[in-house]
C-alpha cells in the first residue's frame, strides 16, 4: 500500500495546508472517500483517497503546510496492522452521521461494526460538507448540537450560523449594520458580554478588514501564484491566436423570447449560451479539449469548461463547469450562477479546481471588444469572449445593425494549429446560430 500524499490541486499549486482530517487511524476507506480538508491559496477543498484500505498513521498535523507529494498518512491494506498507536487528529468536529467507530489501540484492525452505507441510511441526515464543518469550527459550533433544517435534516450554513455564539446586538447597531452592509458576524462587540454597539459597527465599516486569509500570505500569494502560472504558460506554450466575429442576433432574440416566460431566477444570460456553445464545440473537436503532458496530447475524459471568474480583491479563479456539454442550457445557467457564487465565497470543490479541460474568459462586461488570453497549462486552449456590441452588418445584402461578439481562441501550437482553431471558432459560431439546439 502506498502512502496517501498531498495531491496537486491545480497546475499552480506547490503546497497546501491540512485544515482538518476527516478520518482517523484504523478507519476503513473506499476509493474516492474524502480524507481531509486542505486549504490551497484559493479555497478550502476536500481531498480523496484513490485507493481503498485502512488509514494507518496520520503524518501531518492540521495547520501544517506541506509540499505537494508529501506523505500525509500511511495506508494499510485490509488485514495489515498499523505500526503505532493512533495519532491525535487535532480538533476536527464530528457530525452525528459520521461512520467512525471509536478509536482503537494498535492491534489487528477489525472491520467496522456496521457497514457505512447502512449507518448513513439508518435515519441519519446527510453529513455536513467539509467547508461547512470548517465554518462551524471557525465559529466554535459543535455540529452534534445543531438541528438541521435542510432536506432530510441536513445541517445548513444558516443552521450553523444560528447556533453560533452570536453576541447580542443592540437594535440600533443591527440597523446600522444593515445600512452600512457590515456583516455582524465579523464585528467584535465592546459592550457588556460582548454586546455589539453602534460604534463597533461603525468601526468595522471603516476598517473594512480583508477577509482573514488562512495563511497570512494568502492575498500576496494569489498574485504570486497567478504570476508564476502566467510566466510558465508564456515560457512553455507556443501560443497562436485566431478570432472571428459572431452575429448574435439569433441568440439574443431567442433568449429574449424564452426569458419572457421565465422568472428572474431562471433567466438565461448570453454568457451561458456562449459557454454552452463552447462546450458542444469542444465535444465535436476533442483535440482542443485536453492537456499537453510530457510531450503528448492527453484528451480530457469529458468536457469540463473552466470559467474565469474574478473574485473580489483582485484574485482570479477558473473552476470547471463540469460536464458542460451534457447540461441543457437552463441547467447550465443555474450551474454557472452557483459556480460563480461559490467561487466568490471560496467554496469550490477539488474537482472543480483541478478538472477544467479548456478555459473560457469572458471580459465582455468589462467593456473590451476582444480578448487574447493566456492558456492555463496543462490545457491547450483558451477561448476569449468580448463585449456584445451593436454594429453595422451585412444582412441579406443590405446594411443592418446587429449585436456582434468577437470570439478569439488562444491555442497551444504544439497540440493544434490555426486551421483547427479556426474550425473550432466556426463550430461555435454555427452552434450559436441555432440557439434552440443549445
Amino acid at each position, binding site marked *: 500500500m502506498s502512502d496517501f500524499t498531498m495531491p496537486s490541486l491545480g497546475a499552480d499549486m506547490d503546497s497546501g495546508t491540512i485544515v482538518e482530517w476527516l478520518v482517523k487511524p484504523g478507519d476503513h476507506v473506499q476509493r474516492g472517500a474524502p480524507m481531509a480538508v486542505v486549504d490551497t491559496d484559493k479555497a478550502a477543498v476536500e481531498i480523496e483517497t484513490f485507493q481503498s484500505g485502512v488509514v494507518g498513521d496520520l503524518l501531518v498535523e492540521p495547520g501544517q503546510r506541506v509540499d505537494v507529494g508529501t506523505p500525509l498518512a500511511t495506508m494499510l491494506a485490509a488485514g495489515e496492522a498499523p505500526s503505532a498507536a493512533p495519532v491525535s487528529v487535532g480538533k476536527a468536529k464530528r457530525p452525528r452521521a459520521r461512520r467512525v467507530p471509536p478509536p482503537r489501540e494498535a492491534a489487528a484492525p477489525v472491520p467496522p461494526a456496521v457497514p457505512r452505507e447502512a449507518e448513513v441510511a439508518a435515519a441519519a441526515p446527510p453529513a455536513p460538507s467539509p467547508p461547512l464543518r470548517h465554518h462551524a469550527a471557525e465559529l466554535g459550533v459543535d455540529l452534534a448540537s445543531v438541528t438541521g433544517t435542510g432536506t432530510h435534516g441536513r445541517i445548513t450554513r444558516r443552521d450553523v450560523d444560528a447556533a453560533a455564539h452570536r453576541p447580542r446586538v*443592540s*437594535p*440600533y*447597531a*443591527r*440597523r446600522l449594520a444593515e445600512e452600512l452592509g457590515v456583516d455582524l458576524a465579523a464585528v467584535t462587540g465592546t*459592550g*457588556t458580554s460582548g*454586546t455589539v*454597539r*453602534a460604534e463597533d459597527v461603525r468601526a468595522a465599516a471603516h476598517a473594512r478588514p480583508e477577509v482573514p486569509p488562512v495563511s497570512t500570505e494568502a492575498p500576496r500569494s494569489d498574485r504570486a501564484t497567478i504570476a508564476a502560472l502566467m510566466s510558465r504558460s508564456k515560457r512553455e506554450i507556443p501560443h497562436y491566436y485566431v478570432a472571428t466575429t459572431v452575429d448574435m442576433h439569433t441568440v439574443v432574440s431567442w433568449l429574449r423570447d424564452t426569458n419572457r416566460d421565465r422568472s428572474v431566477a431562471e433567466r438565461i444570460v448570453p454568457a451561458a449560451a456562449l459557454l454552452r456553445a463552447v462546450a458542444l464545440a469542444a465535444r465535436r473537436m476533442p483535440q482542443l479539449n485536453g492537456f499537453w503532458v510530457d510531450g503528448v496530447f492527453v484528451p480530457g475524459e469529458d468536457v469540463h469548461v473552466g470559467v474565469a471568474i474574478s473574485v473580489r480583491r483582485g484574485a482570479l479563479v477558473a473552476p470547471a463547469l463540469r460536464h458542460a456539454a451534457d447540461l441543457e442550457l437552463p441547467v447550465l445557467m443555474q450551474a454557472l450562477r452557483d459556480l460563480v457564487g461559490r467561487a466568490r465565497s471560496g467554496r469550490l470543490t477539488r474537482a472543480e479546481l483541478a478538472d477544467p479541460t479548456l478555459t473560457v474568459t469572458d471580459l465582455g462586461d468589462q467593456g473590451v471588444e476582444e480578448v487574447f488570453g493566456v492558456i492555463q497549462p496543462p490545457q491547450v486552449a483558451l477561448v476569449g469572449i468580448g463585449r456584445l456590441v451593436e454594429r453595422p452588418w451585412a444582412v441579406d445584402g443590405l446594411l443592418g445593425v446587429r449585436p456582434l461578439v468577437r470570439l478569439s481562441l488562444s491555442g497551444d501550437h504544439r497540440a493544434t494549429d490555426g486551421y483547427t482553431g479556426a474550425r473550432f471558432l466556426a463550430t461555435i459560431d454555427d452552434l450559436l446560430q441555432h440557439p434552440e439546439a443549445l
Partner: protein
Amino acid sequence: MSTTLVETTYREAMREAMREAMQRDERVFLMGEDVGAYGGCFAVSLGLLEEFGPERIRDTPLSESAFVGAGIGAAIAGMRPIVEIMTVNFSLLALDQIINNAATLSHMSGGQVSVPVVIRMTTGAGRQLAAQHSHSLEGWYGHIPGIKLLAPATVEDARGMLWPALQDPDPVLIFEHGTLYPMPGSLAPDAAPVDISRAAVRRPGKDVTLLTYGGSLPKVMAAAEELATTGIEPEVVDLRVLRPLDDETIVGSVRRTHRAVIVDEGWRTGSLAAEITTRLVEQCFFDLDGPVQRVCSAEVPMPYAKHLEEAALPQVATIVAAARQVVSG
C-alpha cells in the same frame, strides 16, 4: 417694559403667578388648607389674604374630598378656582373627586359641562417627612385621561405655567416639588406665561438622553456636569408636561443620542419612567444602542432616617452611574 432681572425664588415666583392671575381675572380665587391666615403651609400664598381679601383667599376645612369637590363645583359654575391640596399625599382623600368628577364630567356631559379647575399640590420626598408624607404620585395621575399634569422644575416655569393652566377649560394638576421652593432664580418683572405642552431640552448633548421632571431636575443637571468632565455629553430633557407627554421631544432626543436614562422619583414599578420606556421602545426601538435605564426610588415606603431616605431616592451618584452604564455597557 423693564429688562432688569429680579432675583427671586421658586416660591415667590409661584406667589407672583397667583397674584397676577387674580389681578387679571376676577374669576380666579385660591382655596385650601391654611392658605389664608397662615399664608400657606409652604408660605407660597404669604400676604395674599391681606392683598385680596377673604372672598378670594379662602381657608377651607380639613377635608380634601369636600373642598376639592367644592372647587370642582365652583369651576363648573364659571369660576376659575386654584385649589391647593397641601401635599399630594393628602390628595388621596380627594381621589374620587379628581378622577371621577373633575376628569370625567366634561365627557359624561357630552361637553355641556367643563371643569376648568387648577389643583396645585406639593409633592416629593427629601425632607424627612417619612412614609405617609413623601409620595411622588405623578405617575399615578398620569394614568388618568381627562386631566393635564404639569411639573414646573424651574423658577421660570413656576412663574409662567399657572396662567395658561387657568385658561385651560379642563382640569390641570400642578406638582410642585417641596425641595424646589427655596430655589433661587432670576426673572423679568413681567415674565410672560410659558408653553404648557412641550418638554424642554435644558442641556443639549449627544451621548445619552437624561429624561426627568420636577424635583429631580437639579440632581440631573448636576449629574450632567459631572458626566461632561469625563467626556460623556448628556442631553437633559425636562419633561415639564407629564400628561400628555411630549413624545416628539422625548423620542427626538433619544433618536439622536441612542441612549436613555429616565430619572423619576416615583417607585419604578408602573411608573412614569416605565411609560416613557415603553414609548421609546414603541417609537425608536431601532435607534436604541442599549437598554433604557431607570433611576427611581427604591421600592420601599419612604424611610424617615436621613441616610435611609437619601439611599432610597435618586441621587447624583446613581444618575451618573446609570448614564455610564448605558454609554459603555
